[in-house]
């Protein structure tokens, strides 16, 4: 399972890298002669209402999806891990403040909060990244904190303290490496979600703006033609499933290998 996931993700990375060679058409080339053509020899995944080649657009879309997924988790990961590990390790007022901050973010449905922040900042991926940084760290912080709280009581950490090592050293050398595995698993799930929500924003018209070859945008463009030209929406969605399954399988496999989950 893990290997399948890894293979899927690697294939996608490869597709994104060599997209210009894989694409059969210019993803933005409008062709009013060949609109709404069903999948066939000329257009493998058919064409949309202005005659753009769906296959080429799906291939190019992988670049945006990976860019959003991989970049989008960095800020939440770094912020959340720093907050969570320090809060869990030190406890006391540091912990109290961090957890109150977490408490007030938890009641907001994640997607709703991201939406409202994007609403304030305006549409676009950069604003989506900002929204993720503001909201997404909470999950990482909770996870890292609970790990750190257990490790803080572990005798080898106590031993490091009674050996007179500094807190910074203990956090980096003893807490962080031992807290990492569940966080890595979470990252994999999170990449899937960040790609999904990014596409959902595109779908709702608040993410990447058209005419970009972004899967969410493409699904939205095909929405009005769903009963006559299903392929416009179908293929980008299938691509999303395949990339999401790749990351989710890696996470699932890691969780088993690291014995986080049975």
């Amino acid at each position, binding site marked *: 399972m893990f290997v399948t996931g890894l293979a899927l993700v690697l294939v996608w990375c490869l597709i994104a890298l060599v997209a210009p060679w894989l694409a059969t058409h210019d993803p933005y080339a409008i062709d009013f002669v060949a609109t709404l053509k069903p999948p066939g020899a000329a257009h493998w995944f058919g064409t949309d209402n202005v005659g753009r080649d769906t296959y080429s657009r799906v291939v190019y879309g992988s670049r945006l999806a990976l860019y959003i997924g991989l970049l989008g988790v960095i800020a939440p990961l770094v912020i959340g891990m720093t907050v969570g590990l320090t809060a869990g390790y030190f406890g006391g007022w540091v912990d109290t403040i961090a957890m109150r901050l977490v408490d007030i973010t938890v009641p907001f449905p994640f997607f709703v909060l991201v939406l409202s922040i994007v609403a304030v900042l305006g549409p676009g991926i950069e604003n989506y990244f900002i929204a993720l940084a503001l909201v997404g760290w909470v999950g990482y912080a909770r996870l890292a904190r609970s790990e750190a709280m257990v490790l803080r009581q*572990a*005798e*080898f950490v*106590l*031993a*490091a*303290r*009674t*050996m*007179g*090592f500094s807190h910074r*050293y203990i956090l980096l050398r*003893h807490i962080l*490496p*031992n807290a990492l595995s569940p966080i890595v698993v979470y990252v994999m799930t999170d990449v899937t979600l960040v790609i999904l929500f990014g596409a959902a924003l595109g779908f709702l018209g608040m993410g990447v703006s058209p005419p970009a070859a972004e899967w969410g945008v493409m699904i939205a463009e095909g929405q009005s033609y769903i009963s006559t030209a299903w392929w416009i929406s179908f293929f980008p969605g299938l691509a999303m499933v395949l990339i999401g399954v790749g990351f989710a399988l890696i996470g699932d496999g890691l969780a088993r290998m690291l014995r986080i989950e049975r």
Partner: protein
Amino acid sequence: MTPLLKVCDLSVRFGQTVAVDGVTFDLARGAALGIVGESGSGKSVTCRALMRLLPPATNISGSVEFEGRDLLNLSEPELNTIRGKRIAMIFQSPASHLDPLMRIGEQVAEALVEHTDLKGRAVWEEVLRLLDVVRIPDPDRCARAYPHQLSGGMKQRAMIAGALACQPDLLLADEPTTALDATVQKSVLDLLAQLRREQNLSMIFVSHDLGAVARVCDDLLVMRRAKLVERGPVTRVIDAPQHEYTKQLIASHPDRLASRQVAAVSQGAPLLEAQGIQIRYGGKSLADVLTGREGGFVAVKHADFVVRPGETLGIVGESGSGKTTLARSLVGLVKPHKGEVLFDGAPADPSGRGRVAYLRDVQLIYQHPYEALSPRLTVQAAIAEPLRRHRLCPAAEVLRRVAELMAQVDLAPDLAKRLPGQLSGGQCQRVAIARALAFNPRVLIADEVTSALDVTLQAQVMDLLLKLQKERGLTMVFISHDLAVIRRLCNSVIVMRAGEIVEAGPTASVFDAPQQAYTRALIDAIPHLHGDAA
């Protein structure tokens, strides 16, 4: 008379691992058989295999005949008419073996409802009677309580009550007293011995503790590495062991270890001194401020003691007595609320300024050998860590010094590259000791360092500590719940109970002429090889 239970060539395998290898024994009606062995010897697995309480994938072979029926060949429903009704079982940790969401009374009643015709009111009456049989005060209240509301000893009694519910012929007891404090342990053992007499109960008692087995049983099986190595009447095995391993096991028992030539308490100036230490956890809540209470939970109420150079001070007490908290305050892991620690005559602040310098002189060794070492550092890296971080020796000499320290604690050099998970408990504890010695400390505080180890390893670690003390003139503070260990190692001793020091003095006088009833109870509870067997 045909035996009640006839076990023939019992073997248990988990995949490739052989946990029990060809064990054969009989148990006569009314007899009590003890199975002793160290961890991993297969004693618990043997006990569970009798009732097929092992994971489904386990391979069990041989035969277990109970009144002529082979339990290993019965179908699950047939077996369930015997489990709990004819053969009952009690386990090591009563806390985890009771369902936290169900009242004690209902859990005791479960077997009654399953195996008898009693209904409603009658079940409850019977539950109350059973709780009374196991000497639970106020059975009515206890029956309504949830497990978390009872103490460990009470929970174990409730488990026993549940096991006795259908008046079984055979009781299997798997380390039933191991998780309990010494005094509670003794009372549970006494209860089991008494139940045996009163109810003519046959019993199989599994334990790592020879003393505990000697208190209840008349016959003994000794297991080692999945095999039965010796059998016979308890007194015979203890007095005249035949197998090499049994001899070693018995020689390692604190009763048999040569008691040390306790040096006269030295009269030098105190090296480490605690003055009026008070430790509390948790702060004041608003309600505490308003009512003027001190607030929080007081772990140590008031502790004074002195340790002189070259001396070993023992601190004994049961769980919750505050002994570990007190030890941790000496190395700055816990900050005392009141009082102070003096080192070499000068006030020291183990958790504040100057702690790094102070900790070079005072080192603590922890209880759990595996947990005290970072799982990701090799033996070499773990011992080298303080040497490098604190530049205790020139960088070029670190590895040579690590090898030297490993030799001092009798660790083979080829273990240097291993991770803690690849070592035995005793080896891990040696690594932890070597790591503390890297500082060249003047005081070594040992917090229950032997309690997680098997007796033979326990004896070895104790010998190592004694050797190191002699070679290096170390001063030691030795914390333990095990009085036998304390008696062997310490010059003087303090006895703690619920955060207070109840008695203190030279070891010999505290043990031979205890002034407090509590100390006397603790001493009486030490399991001896020649127990006042029932």
